[in-house]
């Protein structure tokens, strides 16, 4: 019998037809839309005089540009307001479910999809956002697309894509204390580089991955794109089923049992061949932080910024340019560097477990005087839980500012910008030049590390702060 990977199984069952010497016509089960990458797609549909084929397969929410204060008031920024209004009009006109600002399930698209149980194993999921890979944590093929493809999905529920190559990354062993799933993924990206998985779809496997909660798995799959991968997935298991059970859109009653039986078949066959494999030992992973301007530029917090030894040509020039932007020198330690901002939030680490971990760490402590600390829940649901569990009080007592849900300072499309030249340690996913505002200097780390930085005011190892 043919041995297939999980990726093969899901991909192949969604191919409507293969164009000879061309892409596959690929059927999409669920499509998420937001205000920034959808308006031109809708406009083009109108120009072509066609409608939305399966409005029940698309779900929308405004998240990228929305303010994180005063969400009950009219959005002040005219262009942001227009985009949000356009999303409302388009959803209403075509009968698309919208989780609008202020509604119970508003939030970052990659937080609310799983939270509502819309995201399920075996599905194909796309969205005009590269962090759609988040949904892969449920054993789904999920990836980001461009606006032309958003238009294709709206019009035909299909896109045309060439099947990616297959990569498996296995992490076995036990994680040390103070080491989180964010550290696992930052470690992997540092090992294989920001372009190391380009052209591949990644399956994460191994005992260290299996031991993670669904939220922790989402953090890992979320950052698959940061090593260039089309997406990343994890085979569903009891953890997945337990998470989904009872969720609003999850199957109920008899249908649940039948569906779980199918979900249990969603795994890579023993002996299936991957185009590329990596294996890492969980014991070697420690709290990580980035020091440069792409997510592959990460080191252990206790380590030093790499020297230029062995680098030459454009590689060395790019490296030094990156360090110059960050205001760092090759070879120096990263620990102890002064920080100005901390940001807890985003589709990478804006879930309740992330907020719990920060709150547990800062309970009874105060943020350092030089730190501005923002905490932005990934959704209204997360915000509500944080209030109910008393986390908001702990965080506010420690000097954190709680804001309303949205993408916020992860990409700084709204007013949540880090000022030029300032340092931010952030739980988000990208440390590109200007990502958190023009001239902003971003260091990526786990929520736990961010908590340690907040209370010490400098880059700190969470295992050494009490």
């Amino acid at each position: 019998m043919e041995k297939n990977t999980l990726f093969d199984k899901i991909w192949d069952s969604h191919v409507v037809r293969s164009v000879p010497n061309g892409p596959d016509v690929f059927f999409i089960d669920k499509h998420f839309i937001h205000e920034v990458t959808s308006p031109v797609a809708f406009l083009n549909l109108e120009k072509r005089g066609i409608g939305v084929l399966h409005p029940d397969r698309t779900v929308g929410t405004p998240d990228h540009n929305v303010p994180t204060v005063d969400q009950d008031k009219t959005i002040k920024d005219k262009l942001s307001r227009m985009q949000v209004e356009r999303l409302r009009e388009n959803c209403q006109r075509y009968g698309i479910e919208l989780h609008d600002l202020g509604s119970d399930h508003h939030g970052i698209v990659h937080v609310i999809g799983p939270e509502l149980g819309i995201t399920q194993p075996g599905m194909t999921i796309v969205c005009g956002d590269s962090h759609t890979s988040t949904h892969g944590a449920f054993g789904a093929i999920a990836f980001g697309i461009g606006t032309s493809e958003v238009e294709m999905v709206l019009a035909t529920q299909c896109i045309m894509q060439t099947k990616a190559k297959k990569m498996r990354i296995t992490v076995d062993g036990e994680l040390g204390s103070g080491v989180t799933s964010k550290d696992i993924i930052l470690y992997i990206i540092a090992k294989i580089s920001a372009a190391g998985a380009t052209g591949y779809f990644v399956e994460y496997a191994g005992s260290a991955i299996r031991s993670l909660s669904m939220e922790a798995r989402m953090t890992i799959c979320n950052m698959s794109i940061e090593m260039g991968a089309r997406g990343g997935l994890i085979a569903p298991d009891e953890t997945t089923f337990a998470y989904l059970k009872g969720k609003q859109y999850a199957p109920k009653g008899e249908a649940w049992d039948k569906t779980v039986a199918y979900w249990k078949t969603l795994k890579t066959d023993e002996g299936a061949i991957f185009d590329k494999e990596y294996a890492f030992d969980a014991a070697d992973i420690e709290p990580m932080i980035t020091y440069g301007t792409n997510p592959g530029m990460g080191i252990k917090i206790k380590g030093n910024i790499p020297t230029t030894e062995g680098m030459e040509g454009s590689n060395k020039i790019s490296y030094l340019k990156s360090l110059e932007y960050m205001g760092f020198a090759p070879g120096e330690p990263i620990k102890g560097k002064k920080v100005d901002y901390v940001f807890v939030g985003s589709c990478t680490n804006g879930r309740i477990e992330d907020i719990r971990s920060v709150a547990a760490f800062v309970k009874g402590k105060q943020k350092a005087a030089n730190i501005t600390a923002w905490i932005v829940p990934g959704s209204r649901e997360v915000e509500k839980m944080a209030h109910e569990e008393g986390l908001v009080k702990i965080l506010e007592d420690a000097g954190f500012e709680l804001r309303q849900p949205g993408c916020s300072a992860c990409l700084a499309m709204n007013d949540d910008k880090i000022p030029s030249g300032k340092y931010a340690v952030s739980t988000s996913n990208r440390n590109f030049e200007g990502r958190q505002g023009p001239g902003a200097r971003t260091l990526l780390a786990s929520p736990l590390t961010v908590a340690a930085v907040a209370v010490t005011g400098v880059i700190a190892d969470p295992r050494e702060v009490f």
Partner: protein
Amino acid sequence: MAYDKFNILTSTVVPLPAENVDTDQIIPARFLKATEREGFGDNLFRDWRYDVEGNPKKDFVLNNPTYSGKILLSGKNFGSGSSREHAVWAIYDYGFRAVVSSFFADIFKNNCLNIGVLPVTISAEFAEVLFKAVDADPKTEVEIDIDKQTITLLSTGEFESFDINSYKKENMKNGFDDIDYLLNIKDEIAAFAENR
């Protein structure tokens, strides 16, 4: 939507030797707020091109009158990061029809092919040859022939072949996009959806 047909492109080259140019550099997020596809070229490489007051930075290649053309030659891993198609819209609107690099990010490459910008992947060695030739003579012309799948340095005749699947090639040559194809097989898609 439909775009201009791509056949043989002969042009001078704009060199940008930086590596890992992500789509946040190509167009920063704060310029993604339009609801129509207009004017993105003005903000192409915004923060490399202009200072905070909006004055052109003299040392950036797009502000250097010595270089111009419809071909952008870049360092490896071009277009990484965000899936924003706006990055390709900015490149197209500015006037480029082809981007040449030894390595492209996946989503960016797809987006290019969907709106009529040709991504040409060449070897790191040939990229070096092109960078040197353009550096020595900014008037150097390069020819990209999509039918023959070749990119040629006209001054010396050195050339390399590049990959593109025949489906996308026909699309680029005719200015077609994928929706035209998908709408033509509507019934087949409907039958597939019915069985899911």
